[in-house]
Every structure is written in C-alpha cells, then in structure tokens.
C-alpha cells in the first residue's frame, strides 16, 4: 500500500534558506504522527511543505505517492481558527462547503452529493444544528470543529491539523478526538502539530520531535523521553510528586 507520507533526510525552508532539516518520516494510511516542538520550531513549515506550499530543499519527499507540489490540493488541512476573521459574513454551511469547491469546479452548482457530504461532515463533528449560523458567532472550539468538518468534506486520505486543540474547550476537544479516531479507523493518515505532549501520547502512533531539525522520531513511549525533550526544547524538566514531569523552557 502506498505510504501517505515519506520524508527521507528532507530539508525545507524559504528562498533557499532551510528552516527545518534532517526530517525522516514514514506514515502509513491510518497512522497518526504528532509534530512536537516549541514555537518557531518549524512545525507549521513542515506542514506547509507537505501541502506543497513550501519547497523541499534537500532529500526525498513523497505525499500520497507524488512529489508534494504535484499532490497539492489532495491533502486536507485544518488551520488554527484564530487565524480567521470572526466577523467575516459567512455561514457554517458555506465554510464546510469550501471543502468541496475543488471537486465542484468553476461552473457547476453544488450538487446533491456535495450537500450530503457537507451535512454528514457537520453531523460527524456534532454541529449539524449550527449549519445556518454565522461562523464567527460560534465558540473557538466549535469553529475548530467546523474547520475539521470542512476538511472531512473534501474526503482526504491525508489530513494535516495545525495545533487543533489550542484554545479549544473540553467538549470540543473530546468531539475532535472522537472524529480523528474515526478517520484513522477508516484509513486516513493524520499529521497533527501540537504543544500538548499528552495529546501526542494519546493520539499518535508516531511522534516527531523538531526544533530547527528533527531530534527524534518514533513511537510515543520511546520518543517522549526526558533526554529527547531536553535536546529538543533546550530546557529542563521538573519531576512532580505524582510521577508526571513539567518541561520548563529556557
């Protein structure tokens, strides 16, 4: 079966200047990789390179069996909701329908299949009753679920999520996690950038620790070690009485 993603000794960056180097990653259909690292580590740049929006400067990369630029538009993408204008006059249904625009094309009106895909996607994220509401009137967590529904409506085999749990309430987080598990169960591969190590541990099959370069990658238990985290974050850890650890950034 074609891997969803293969990165071998890849460097990515802007205008010839690498932002992130030494990325080695292979993701099979139905697997989840969590990209973990501090702010400015290159998580968003890596996601953009998978989307074909930032060039691969060195190494070999394939996305859904093609060069990332050739696969552009075939991977789903869920941006952070706070990057969008909350005052924009657009309904929840319209936002989710955007996930179908590439299929619909330039001239054809949205058909029965498109409307059904939108309704089903909204139903899956638990927002079927909000279809007619203006996007900006929803809470941050609900907006994030709408953006997830938009990505689902495009029926991607690879889905990339940029910090999907930032500023999200517990109800929405549970709903998002449930949908993500459903998606991997049906063979969709996921790439999730996150600050939250617990999320990485709970959701991911693979964790990729990055900060300017890839420092470690592999199954969560073997990768989220104190030594790897210190190398990635450059800080120190504090052991708590209940056995957990808190990472303190320098």
């Amino acid at each position, binding site marked *: 079966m074609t891997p969803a993603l293969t990165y071998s000794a890849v460097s990515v960056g802007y205008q010839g200047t690498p932002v992130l180097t030494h990325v080695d990653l292979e993701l099979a259909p139905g697997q989840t990789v969590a990209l973990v690292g501090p702010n400015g580590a290159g998580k968003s740049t890596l996601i953009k390179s998978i*989307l074909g*929006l930032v060039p691969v400067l060195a190494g070999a990369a394939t996305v859904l069996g093609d060069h990332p630029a050739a696969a*552009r*538009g*075939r*991977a789903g*993408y869920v*941006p952070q909701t706070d*990057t*969008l*204008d909350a005052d*924009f*006059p*657009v*309904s929840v249904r*319209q*936002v989710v329908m*955007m*996930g179908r*625009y*590439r299929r*619909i094309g*330039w*001239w054809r009106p949205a058909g029965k299949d498109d409307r059904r895909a939108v309704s089903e996607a909204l139903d899956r994220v638990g927002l079927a009753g909000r279809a007619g509401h*203006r996007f900006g*009137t*929803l*809470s*941050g*967590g609900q907006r994030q679920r709408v*953006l997830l529904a*938009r990505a689902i409506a*495009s029926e991607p085999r690879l889905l*990339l999520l940029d910090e999907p*749990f*930032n*500023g*999200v*309430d*517990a109800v*929405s*987080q549970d709903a998002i996690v449930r949908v993500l598990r459903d998606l991997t169960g049906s063979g969709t591969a996921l790439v999730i950038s996150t*600050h*939250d*190590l*617990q999320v990485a*541990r709970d959701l991911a099959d693979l964790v990729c620790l990055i900060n300017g370069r890839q420092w470690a990658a592999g199954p969560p238990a073997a990768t*989220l070690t*104190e030594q790897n*985290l210190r190398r990635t*974050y450059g800080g120190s*850890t504090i*052991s708590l009485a209940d*056995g*957990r*650890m*808190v*990472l303190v*950034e320098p």
Partner: protein
Amino acid sequence: MIEPFTAPFMARALTELALLALICGPISVFVFARRLSFVSDALTHTIFPGVVIGFLAGGLEGLFAGALVAGIVTAVVLTLLTRGGRVSDDAATAVVLTAMFSIGVAMVSRRSSYTSDLTSFLFGRLLTVSPRQIAETAALVVIVLIALVAGARALLFRTFDPGGAAAAGFRVGWLDLWLNILVALVVVAAVRAVGTILVVALLIVPAAAARMVTDRLVVMAAVGTVLILGAGYGGLLLSWTASIHYGVSLTSASSVVLLLVAAYCLLIPVRLIRDRRRRTVTVPRQRSSVHELVG
C-alpha cells in the same frame, strides 16, 4: 418623479448608473470582505494618467482605452507588489497611488483647459453619457459578471481563508490578480460617468452599508446593488430638481454619492440594534499551554 427621466440625457445617465449598480454591488462585497478599500482607492487614482493619456491621444473617445490599459497594468503591478508580504500592502499601494496620480496631474496641467479637464476626470460627466459609452459599459458589465460568477467560490475561499485555499490547491496569487483586474474593470466602466474620485464610493459604500443589515454575502451584493440603484435615481432627481426648480447647481454624480453615504449613515442604527440583540458568546475555557508530560 418619472418626468425628469423622459429627457434623453437623464434616461442615459440613469441607464449608466443601473448598469454600474449591477457590478458595483457584487464587487463591493469582495472589496469589503478582502479589506481592499485602499487598493480600490489606489486603482481609481492610478487609472488617472491612463485617462489623461487616452484623452490627449483620442479626445473623449480615447479615454476608455487609456483607462482600460492603465487599469489592467496597475492591477498587475499592485498584485505583484503586495504579493507574499515582501512590501507592506499599504506602503506599496500608497507609493503607486501617489506616483501615478502625480504623473496624471503633471500631464493634464500642460493643457490650457487644465481646470475643466481635471474637474471632468475627477468628478465625471454623468449627464453627458453617450449611447456608445452605455454600450461599452454594458460590455464590461457582462465580462465582469461572467468572471465574477466563475471565480466566486475560489474568491470567497481565498478571502475567508487564504492559507486554506492555497492548501486546497487554489493559486492565491492568480486569484488576487483576478479580483484586482475585476476592480480595475469596474473603475474603468464607471470613471467617465462619476470620475476617478467618486467611483471609489461605488466600490466601498454599498457593501459597507449592506453589512449593517445582513450577514449573508449574496444578500449584501443584492442590497448593495439596490442601494446604488436607489441612490442613482434619487441623486439624479435631486440634482434635476435643485437646478430646474431652485436654480441651485448640484452636480449629479456627487448627489448620487451623497445619497449613498446618507443610506450608510441611516443604516448604522440598524447594525447597533442587531449587535445588541445578538446573544453574547461565552468564552470557552482555554487549555493550558504548559508543556506537560507523563514520566
């Protein structure tokens, strides 16, 4: 109320404004949503030297071609300058705006009839619209509407979420050029009738006023179109009545724009009432961003 429009020049002026309403209403929605007011303002000014060159080369008949060439060239230049954040949008736009406008003024000032020419370029000649002008405007209206309908979904996606649109495979740079050219074509269509200064009102005020009463883009476009039609009819009537019955010289294009702005002001309370009625959205509990791990 109908009688003034039995005069052919008034009927032609109203026809021209009705045609412009068909494109200005929908385009103003994108100008509003993309926050392109300043870019639109710049386009109206950067077309100015094209208008002057066209006039100097071919008189009033050359004005259209001059404006068309200048409009498309400046749409391309503005798109390239503001692309990718290499130059701050506002700074680049302001430089192009002032440079091109100065060139236009320098050229027109070489003519002996400098003041009257400048006035007509800046404020238009709504009451001297010719049948040929109406035909040219109608052609542009058809082109703009077809291009707008074809690109509406992609433009909406790009306007709402440029990153998401790029990730979905849309070429954001081309979409920006597409919209800028459409705005330029609208300016070209409107510039002879209402002038380079007042045309910006037709590109900004309709959607801004419509936003006061609706949250839906399609309704905004329709309301914007109706507002221009209403202001067009009312402005022409006002200008006619003032000059015929009261001997007051009131230019028709500025009457139209003033009524449009008055509609905007009258709708402000509607927006305030709607905002007050809108239920308060509760702020969700934020997750901690502490990097926590289980050891």
